[in-house]
């Protein structure tokens, strides 16, 4: 590979990644040379600017044709663009939260690291969505993971933060090993790590033994990746880590990292296993695995919603709620209908706003009160009607009440699950039943905010970054709830059903 060759690649396709990488590097360097006493907020704003710039550059790339560089290891297809937008949007909002995050102890000196680690994690996620090769996919995944490990434990003096990071690392390591083990078999059978080549080779596979092994590999990869989604059976780390990690990190994990998990899941599974012929039917192997995914989706929804009922800590509660939401999205995934992509994308979009909005308020409240107990939301309606109103919107959206984006997202998932033949009645029923169960804890928060008297009537000082986040999220949640066609039209006109997913 000579220089000419190197220069012949359309590096422009990677502008957003370069921007993020550059920002991260500059942040790291600046942090190093900045006087210790200096307020690190500026770094946060710089990072935010980098993300915004990346979003702008990505929007400019939207019209670009599908192409790949670096021997098809980096692809810029509509799938990548669509999900990168989500990742970047989520990261931008998280960044706003992170700037406002000033915990009582153990943070101040690491705030610089805090910002650039977000950038590297984001970079990993972005690489994953664009990668066309198992190796880049894996590297992206690990970049995200390792950055997140550090982020989770960034409050070095805080034992809860330490513990959550440790748990995260150990579980993450195991999941990585399992995923890789599965991947190694897929590689072994095809002899290539390139997803497209794999798909091509696998579609001609005729050895039933290989199909069988691929089935096992599928399960390993799926379970391994379910770590990132925080879905069953690899969901149990999530509550502990979410609780212990700094709130912006929790927000990041529950939104950006989860989105990235779905990205990699679709990338690997759809491109590789959709091509494998099944042993017993005309359909690809993937379709015979639907029931497994469905089973796990059902388990995830039940576990998430049912255990959430017993939570007193708001962050733990949202951890379980985010497990449940992963389950909902898996329903769409397991249905594999023609609206699968739109529904997952839209749901993640809705989830991004509603969850981040909620976390913004949680961050504000937990910092203010110094505790995460739900009862400290009591009387919020009196103390800050704006926050209470916004929180109500987010909660209603999470609960899937009409008029909010969450409802439309759920609707789309139902539609997908029911339009295929045979329809997934059981899965849909579980989803709906658990949604009703979720009313208990979601409305429990509303009860606290609106019905219960406040312990004290101190007004809550609003921080600009948080307020902006809250307002953006609330507005988006409502707008996409009432006029979802805005999102759908954008999706359809720019991404065109991801028909270029495998080309």
């Amino acid at each position: 590979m000579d220089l000419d060759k190197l220069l012949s690649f359309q590096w422009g396709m990677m502008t957003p990644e370069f921007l993020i990488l550059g920002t991260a590097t500059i942040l790291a360097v600046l942090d190093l040379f900045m006087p210790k006493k200096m307020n690190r907020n500026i770094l946060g704003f710089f990072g935010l600017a980098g993300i915004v710039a990346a979003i702008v550059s990505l929007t400019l790339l939207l019209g670009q044709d599908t192409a790949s560089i670096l021997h098809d290891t980096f692809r810029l297809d509509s799938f990548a663009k669509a999900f990168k937008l989500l990742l970047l949007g989520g990261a931008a909002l998280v960044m706003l939260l992170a700037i406002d995050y000033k915990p009582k102890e153990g943070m101040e000196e690491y705030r610089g690291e805090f910002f650039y680690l977000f950038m590297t994690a984001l970079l990993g996620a972005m690489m994953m969505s664009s990668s066309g090769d198992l190796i880049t996919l894996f590297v992206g995944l690990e970049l995200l993971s390792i950055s997140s490990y550090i982020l989770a434990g960034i409050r070095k003096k805080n034992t809860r933060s330490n513990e959550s990071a440790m748990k995260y690392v150990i579980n993450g390591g195991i999941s990585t090993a399992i995923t890789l083990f599965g991947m190694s078999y897929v590689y072994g059978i095809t002899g290539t790590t390139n997803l497209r080549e794999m798909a091509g080779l696998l579609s001609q596979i005729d050895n039933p033994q290989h199909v069988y092994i691929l089935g096992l590999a599928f399960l390993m990869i799926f379970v391994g990746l379910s770590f990132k989604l925080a879905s069953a059976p690899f969901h149990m780390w999530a509550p502990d880590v979410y609780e212990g990690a700094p709130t912006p990190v929790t927000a990041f994990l529950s939104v950006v990292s989860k989105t990235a998990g779905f990205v990699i899941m679709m990338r690997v599974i759809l491109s590789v296993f959709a091509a494998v012929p099944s042993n017993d039917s005309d359909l690809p192997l993937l379709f015979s695995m639907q029931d497994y995914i469905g089973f796990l989706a059902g388990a995830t929804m039940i576990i998430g919603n049912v255990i959430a009922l017993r939570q007193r800590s708001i962050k733990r509660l949202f951890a379980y709620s985010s497990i449940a939401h992963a389950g909902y999205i898996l329903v769409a995934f397991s249905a594999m209908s023609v609206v699968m992509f739109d529904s997952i994308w839209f749901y993640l979009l809705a989830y991004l706003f509603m969850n981040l909005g909620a976390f913004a308020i949680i961050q504000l409240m937990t910092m203010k009160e110094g505790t995460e107990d739900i009862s400290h939301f009591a009387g919020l309606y009196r103390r800050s009607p704006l926050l209470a109103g916004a929180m109500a919107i987010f909660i209603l959206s999470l609960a899937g009440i009409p008029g909010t984006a969450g409802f439309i997202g759920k609707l789309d998932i139902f539609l997908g699950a029911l339009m295929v033949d045979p329809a997934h009645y059981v899965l849909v029923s579980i989803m709906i039943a658990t949604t009703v169960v979720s009313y208990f804890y979601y409305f429990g928060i509303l009860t606290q905010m609106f019905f219960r008297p406040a312990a004290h009537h101190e007004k809550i000082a609003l921080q600009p970054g948080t307020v902006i986040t809250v307002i953006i999220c609330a507005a988006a949640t409502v707008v996409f709830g009432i006029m979802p066609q805005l999102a759908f039209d954008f999706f359809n006109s720019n991404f065109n059903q991801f028909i270029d997913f495998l080309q």
Partner: protein
Amino acid sequence: MSNVPVSAFLALALILFCIGLYGALSKRNTVIVLISIELMLNAVNINLVTFSKYGPAPSINGQIFALFAIAIAAAEAAIGLAILIALYNNRKTVNIDEMDQLKH
């Protein structure tokens, strides 16, 4: 070398993976847990390298993949240890079963 069947390598890898998993799930000392995770990742590497040499479709990619895996495993172990040290500074223990402040 060539007399050794592929399945032996794969079995070795599988056994190594299982040992690693067992260690990761049962040892009290966090350092050993981290080492066990390394074992699991090494099992993967054996698989990759085996397939790259003797697999049904041998190619160089497997070895490259293995290199990346080694590098990343190292990074992961480093991070793990770093976090452990931080934890140790605060809690004066490396026993994994004592890390149960966060639960339920």
